[in-house]
């Protein structure tokens, strides 16, 4: 039973983390909120006074807004589906007895160590380039017309690049979960003559649900913020402009800090809707 003493000690121990994060959240957030109600154009002299909700109206009524929300959700959703689907398969495979398991595991987790800028550059130039890329060489070797990945399949290409980076993370978490699965339970089911698919559906998958939720939560946080992959590959062209990227264009390319800040506020709202939704599920799954 926790005593009064240990409660106050606990509070003191938590204080630095809470205070720091509160500051990190509130200070920029307040400044962003202030900017978002201003006409703030650094190239035209900076702060040009209050404008009420103009920036908010303008940001949403811009023809780029809804497509960017849609793009954001497609990228996040696409990456989640791919990494979890292949993550489950891969972790089940890695759980099987084999020779050189350690080396395979090293190979599989390697992409996680590559910085996003580098992976975007490598994929864009050395694989997806329609003339000199490796895929183009491969396609030509089979007599096919090389695919123009980043323009014709732009969203898919970005999802592919990001999935490659995050598949190791999903696989690792799912692998630790699978390893904790009671193998006797599986064997018993096998003895009873349950086919592999239903063994997977009724024993493995429920066991993994918790791990999957966690993968979804953590990856979503990171995926909502992806930037380098888009900046390097398409710069937002060909329908790959996410909400984050749209804000970047407003703040840094157009140098309209007010408008961009309003966009930032919308992004925070969107992120929190996603977060609440996720935390409901996670919260349920995390209760022990």
């Amino acid at each position, binding site marked *: 039973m926790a005593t009064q003493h240990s409660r106050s000690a606990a*509070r003191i121990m938590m204080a630095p983390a809470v205070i*720091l994060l509160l500051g990190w959240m509130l200070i920029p957030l307040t400044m962003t909120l202030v*900017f978002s109600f201003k006409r703030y154009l650094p190239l035209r002299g900076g702060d040009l006074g209050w404008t009420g909700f103009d920036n908010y109206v303008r940001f949403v009524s811009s023809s780029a807004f809804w497509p960017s929300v849609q793009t954001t959700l497609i990228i996040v959703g696409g990456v989640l589906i791919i990494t979890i689907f292949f993550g489950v398969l891969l972790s089940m495979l890695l759980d099987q*007895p084999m020779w050189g398991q350690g080396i395979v595991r090293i*190979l*599989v987790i390697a992409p996680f160590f590559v910085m996003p800028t580098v992976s975007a550059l490598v994929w864009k130039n*050395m694989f997806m380039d329609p003339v000199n890329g490796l895929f183009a060489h491969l396609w030509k070797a089979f007599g096919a017309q090389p695919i123009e990945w980043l323009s014709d399949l732009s969203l898919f290409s970005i999802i592919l690049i990001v999935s490659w980076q995050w598949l190791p993370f999903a696989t690792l978490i799912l692998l630790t979960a699978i390893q904790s699965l009671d*193998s006797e339970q599986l064997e018993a089911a096998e003895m009873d003559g349950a086919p592999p698919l239903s063994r997977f559906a009724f024993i493995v998958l429920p066991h993994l649900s918790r791990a999957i939720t966690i993968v979804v939560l953590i990856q979503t946080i990171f995926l909502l913020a992806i930037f380098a992959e888009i900046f390097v590959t398409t710069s937002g062209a060909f329908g790959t402009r996410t909400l984050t*990227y749209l804000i970047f264009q407003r703040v840094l390319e157009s140098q309209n800090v007010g408008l961009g800040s309003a966009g930032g506020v919308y992004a925070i709202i969107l992120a*929190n809707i996603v977060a609440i939704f996720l935390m409901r599920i996670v919260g349920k799954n995390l209760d022990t």
Partner: protein
Amino acid sequence: MARSVTTRRKTINTAVAWAIGFLIFFPILWTILTSFKTEAQAINDPPLFLFFDWTLENYAVVQERSDYMRFLWNSVIIAGGSTVLGLMIAIPAAWSMAFVPSKRTKDILMWMLSTKMLPAVGVLYPIYLLFIQLGLLDTRTGLTIVMMLINLPIIVWMLYTYFKEIPGEILEAARMDGASLKEEILYILTPMAIPGIASTMLLNFILAWNEAFWTLNLTAAKAAPLTAFIASYSSPEGLFYAKLSAASTMAIAPILILGWFSQKQLVRGLTFGAVK
């Protein structure tokens, strides 16, 4: 009890797993190979795999143009510093959340995570102005603090889930024996928590090392880490695949090697409470 498997099944497993592992690793391998080619060989059709004249020229060119060690050192300091600082702040917080939970613990945890949802591009301008005021632009201190703050929620959460798995009875027993709070943390909790802490440390180091938005936007010359180093090779004039590959290899090699050596630790603790 080990499951008995036929050799045949094991062979198939091995073949499939190695093939997939190779496929996933291939982009990195290809980058490393290309870094040893000349620019003309790098775009040769058909592609050259192993049989070309291996050269170190690209590395020499990259090193001559930019002082790699300086970028590397900045990366090490920033990633390392933010990790140590983050752990110092996160361990007590996670400890108290795990062992003295209150009704609001879960809410606080979720709130912490939600601070990570603040879009960086949206707050760049405020942070930039703030950094000017505080004189933190282009300093390793400033960047270390930012890296620590953006990763703190993940660290706290990871440690919290790990600490929670440590059975409370052991602590109870220690307390009965008259152990103080300090002793409890130092002699009982810490040894049990080391795998989790090690794994958290590694994950945080990797995340800080690879972060490319703040590190690029808040630095100029003095504190620029490897993410800035790469930005000067991204699309220069003329053929550049080989030089880009060399620069890329230099940027990812340290973390790749660290990751490989410590992958056991990383894997062991990377559960985020996924296992129950």
